[in-house]
């Protein structure tokens, strides 16, 4: 509590000093060219200040604290034994028998979910970009999954894929596609597949909304010119549509990858990581470690690892996709 109080005071003091500094350099001086220029330079920082303050208050402290805990023996059940233990948590993490299985699951989960959501979301957006009767109603219906909570979607999939009473087995058997019931949630491979399906189903609308908005912002005259020039549909898609929507696609893929990589709610509700960690991913494993064994030190080490992976991913992804130049047609 004391550290938190000191942190809040520190943040407040830093902000106050920042504001004083800006005011000292701008207030009460004749509006000469140099003063005006200093004010303009300070303006963005002033606009950013409320957001920065909120971020520092809401995320800064937990972030710093979890970084510290990653190097501590921090078990909630043994508060008297909290001490720094160097890299012990990281060593423990990589000596866990299932850690490579969990890392593999995380990779599959993220890559398949993001690809599936992107491809299906893109298709949906292209379809909705055309005019057809009841388009508004259809659009509202297909965007519905995005408004459901992950808990509801998780429960829905858990029951649909129930090995004994689930509607999926029933349908597949009636269609003579399978001869006997499949234990979807109790079979390695299938359990992760069900979670991925639920994640794709939930995330398609987000991609569709974002891409549709980008598609609708493409000037119609560019397409008209391409028709006059006799451009074919594939060339039109690759040379006009894709370049125009590229910034949106990049940022959407980036955001969804981060969100999916960090999400664990669907996994916890549908399979709880089972059987035997076959559907466990790094964040769900972190949740299990934090709230099953109350080993916050180990969970924080996992958190630091996740953060490092995501920072690396974001840097490489933005570099590889040339994001700064995306949408630049000059």
């Amino acid at each position, binding site marked *: 509590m004391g550290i938190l109080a000191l942190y809040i005071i520190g943040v*407040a003091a830093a902000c*106050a000093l920042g504001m004083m500094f800006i005011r000292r350099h701008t207030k009460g001086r004749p509006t000469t060219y140099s003063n005006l220029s200093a004010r303009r330079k300070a303006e963005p920082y002033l606009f950013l200040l409320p957001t920065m303050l909120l971020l520092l208050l809401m995320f800064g402290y937990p972030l710093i604290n979890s970084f510290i805990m990653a190097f501590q023996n921090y078990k*909630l*059940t043994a508060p008297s034994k909290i001490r720094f233990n160097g890299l012990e948590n990281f060593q423990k993490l990589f000596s866990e028998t299932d850690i490579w299985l969990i890392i593999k699951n995380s990779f599959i989960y993220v890559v398949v979910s993001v690809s599936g959501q992107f491809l299906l979301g893109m298709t949906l957006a292209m379809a909705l970009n055309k005019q057809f009767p009841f388009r508004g109603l259809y659009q509202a219906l297909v965007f519905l999954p995005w408004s459901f909570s992950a808990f509801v979607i998780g429960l829905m999939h858990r029951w649909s894929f129930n*090995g*004994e009473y689930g509607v999926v087995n029933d349908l597949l058997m009636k269609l003579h596609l399978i001869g006997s019931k499949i234990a979807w949630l109790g079979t390695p491979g299938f359990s992760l597949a069900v979670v991925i399906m639920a994640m794709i189903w939930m995330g398609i609308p987000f991609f569709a909304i974002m891409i549709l908005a980008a598609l609708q912002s493409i000037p119609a005259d560019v397409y008209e010119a391409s028709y006059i020039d006799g451009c074919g549909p594939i060339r039109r898609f690759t040379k006009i549509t894709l370049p125009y929507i590229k910034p949106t696609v990049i940022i959407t893929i980036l955001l969804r990858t981060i969100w999916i990589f960090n999400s664990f709610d669907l996994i916890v509700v549908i399979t709880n990581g*089972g*059987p035997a960690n076959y559907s466990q991913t790094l964040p769900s494993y972190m949740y299990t470690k934090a709230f099953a*064994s109350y080993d916050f030190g180990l969970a924080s080490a996992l958190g630091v690892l996740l953060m490092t992976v995501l920072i690396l991913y974001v840097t490489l992804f933005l570099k590889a996709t040339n994001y700064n130049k995306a949408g630049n047609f000059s």
Partner: protein
Amino acid sequence: MRNKLRLCSVIAMLAIMTFAFAGGAAEKQETKLRFIDVSPSPTRQEYFTNTFEKFKQETGISVVYESVPWDDAANKLTVLGASNQLPDVMTTWAGWLGQFTEAGWVVPLSDYIGSTKDEYASTVTELVWKAEQELYGNIYTIPDGMMVKGVFVRKDWAKEVGLDLDMKKGWTYAEYFDAVYKLTDPSKNRYGTSFRGSRGAFDPLFVYLESLNGGSAYAADGSSLMKNQEAVDAYKKWMGLYLDGCAPKDAINWGFVEMVDNFCGGLTGTLINDSEVTATALANMKDEQWMVMPMPRSDKDGKIYNTVNSPYAYSISSSSKNKDAAWKLIEFLTRPDNNIEYCKLTGLIPIKTAVGDDPFYGPNGPYAAFVQQLNDPAMVVPVAFGPFNYTDMHQGMMHEEMQKYLLGRQDAQTSLFNVVNELEKRMKAYLAENPGSAVEQPKGLL
């Protein structure tokens, strides 16, 4: 200068606000207790709120009812404990006591109980409290009611396949396994057992393994008694129920809810569980569909090894500012009239001797098989996992190792030994850290 003054005043204000929040609100004049229930249901909530109203009329002390769903209870209480925010009175579970006493979150109750000890049934004094004194050095809980395990069986299916089940005669583990195989008929969508493959799966298996060692799990020096071929064979036999198709494949992920749902829903023929499930069976099944058999006798020595415990128990948190008032509330809740009303509602056996011979718990009542076991001289309560904190194992390793064997990822010996080696390590560490402590011994009731 003005700016500096402003800055100072902002910092001072923030500091005052922060420490004011940290210090908490001023104490109130009226005694008000917080009570948390970790297994809420409309029935329980109604019982507690009515009883608290009666309590207020008698004592003038008001009680605020709080609840947390069972699945989140361990997390919530742990977080509340770590932040010194636990309510005055809590319903706790015996499995958490190692963690709670280690962290100092609950207060000893021996002095409060004092001379009233004789008012309690022997299941409370000789089992629950004796075990707590042995494990944690004091009494920390007052059980809300007692429960013992039994085997719920589909009476109608048993009749169809020609099984002659007699509650009074009981059965052995060999007979139980045989019955499970006979009750399995996938063509009719019938499985012999509600196999537990997820959280809590190791509990009944551990008791079965203990039945081979007279109810013990450790030698005097803390070494495990389950690292031998006999235990591995028994482990394979138990797991064979799943591998041989006597349970649906999904059962690898089943916990308490799925087991009970699938028994009451007509998918499985037997269910090993506590007497508290009786209330669910009474509400959802017809009388001619089900019965309860005692837990099987050991194939080795003919004794019934069965756990007797309370589903939940009342305890006082060490952060309570009104510990005496909290004790008054527990005394009120466990008063015979209130306790029997509670036990009937929740499917438990009362904790005080003064409740007399209620026909509900008699030889023709729904709890007959459970009460019969408590009066059986051959019943022995085997030892628990240990006095150390095993919450992490219970929520992970124990069932995960079982699942790895069921999925063919490792052999039976590796799966079993991984768990018992870890238990042995913790038991030996406990004995080394607590000079003078000894390994718990199995207890007879009579």
